[in-house]
């Protein structure tokens, strides 16, 4: 394995990071020991920024820290990639939305309890960005988890005047087989 110097370590870490990296996080990279000083970090960063000048990717400083950013000049190319056809939401996303619509205000933990699996942060973010759900408060239990509810935009997008117009899901579960089973049980009594 190659040994990397400070600059190359920062370069890799910045590319691995999903968002901007703070100086604090950069220090954290080195664990408990021999963390470089802020001066050393800033020096390495400015040397790195110079290296990436006039490249398709450049190192910039934003409010949240430092990050690599693809050049604006590439935006027209990247725009060609976006599909004209709208995508589809995953089943997990639909179930999360359904839980929030039918059980609001509800915490993530409550959704997880019914779904039986963890609810990905990405799912919550997708639904928030879509404007369909919002945080309406926090539950007064340890951790103060956020309470999610649907928005007016959700009602509009689904052509509903109020949540009461949501079809009763309980009716759907009663598939013919369960009806049969019920009848069987009754007749055997």
């Amino acid at each position: 394995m190659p040994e990397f110097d400070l600059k190359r370590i920062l370069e890799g870490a910045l590319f691995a990071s999903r968002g901007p990296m703070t100086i604090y996080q950069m220090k954290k990279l080195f664990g408990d020991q021999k963390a470089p000083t802020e001066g050393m970090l800033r020096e390495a960063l400015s040397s790195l920024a110079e290296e990436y000048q006039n490249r398709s990717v450049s190192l910039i400083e934003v409010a949240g820290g430092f990050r690599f950013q693809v050049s604006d000049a590439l935006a027209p190319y990247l725009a060609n990639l976006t599909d004209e056809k709208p995508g589809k939401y995953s089943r997990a996303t639909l179930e999360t939305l359904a839980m929030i619509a039918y059980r609001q205000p509800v915490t993530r933990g409550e959704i997880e309890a019914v779904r039986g699996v963890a609810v990905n942060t990405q799912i919550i973010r997708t639904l928030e960005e879509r404007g369909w759900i919002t945080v309406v408060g926090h539950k007064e239990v340890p951790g103060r988890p956020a309470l999610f509810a649907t928005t007016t935009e959700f009602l509009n997008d689904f052509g509903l005047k109020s949540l009461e117009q949501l079809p009763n899901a309980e009716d759907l579960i009663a598939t013919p087989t369960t009806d049969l089973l019920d009848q069987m049980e009754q007749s055997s009594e």
Partner: protein
Amino acid sequence: MINHVQGELPLAVVEGSPLTQLPEDLYIPPDALEIILDAFEGPLDLLLYLIRRQNLDIIQINVAEITRQYMGYIALLESMRFELAAEYLVMAAMLAEIKSRALLPRPVGADEDEDHDPRAELIRRLLEYEKVKMSAEAIDEMPRVDRDFHVAEAGQPEIDERTAPPQVDLSELVLAFAELLARARLSSAHQIEWEPLSTRQRMSEILMKLKETAELTLSDLFAPDEGRAGVVVSFLAILELVREGLCALIQAAPGSQIYIRRPTDA
């Protein structure tokens, strides 16, 4: 050879008699009695362990000996009142069958039905399972994204959003919820009575208002045009919110105005 002798306390009670000493051939990893069941992925895994422990090739297993050891484990687990999965008992029965077959004289001249030789079948299954076990370990050791390596990404420039966001049909949503309910019902972990939707929607609305205004009066929440039904829904929503600790009701003096606040501000 490990001989754990534990004073007066029996390790276990097997068929009515206390067991103060582990059978010599029954090696139990120290302190691991409780996790035996967790440690094995099923009867095949347990058998593999018993075979490998003796450095034996699967092909060469002495069924009688392995059966004895396997039964030893089962007896111990049962005596510890572990709820044994049926699979373990099925395997015990199968081992017993193989053992008894080996003891019986082979019918002379009879063409042995190779396909139904349970010993060969057991060996085949053990080999097959061992392969899966090894592949699982190999997969776990393979470099994996976000654990052993990371994808390199940079921020995107501003791109004109041409893509329409995914469309969801109301029926899809209802179906997703119905399936969820059906599943939750199967696991029957969740049998909570939920308030009707109208109440829950009102709860959300009140919380939303409380986000903007720290304090609301009851009259802020009762809309005259909704009539009596609306008042009842608001009232139920407030009660439910208070019950769930999501808001607090404050009244300075009897007969004075009642305020609804966020619980933290109350």
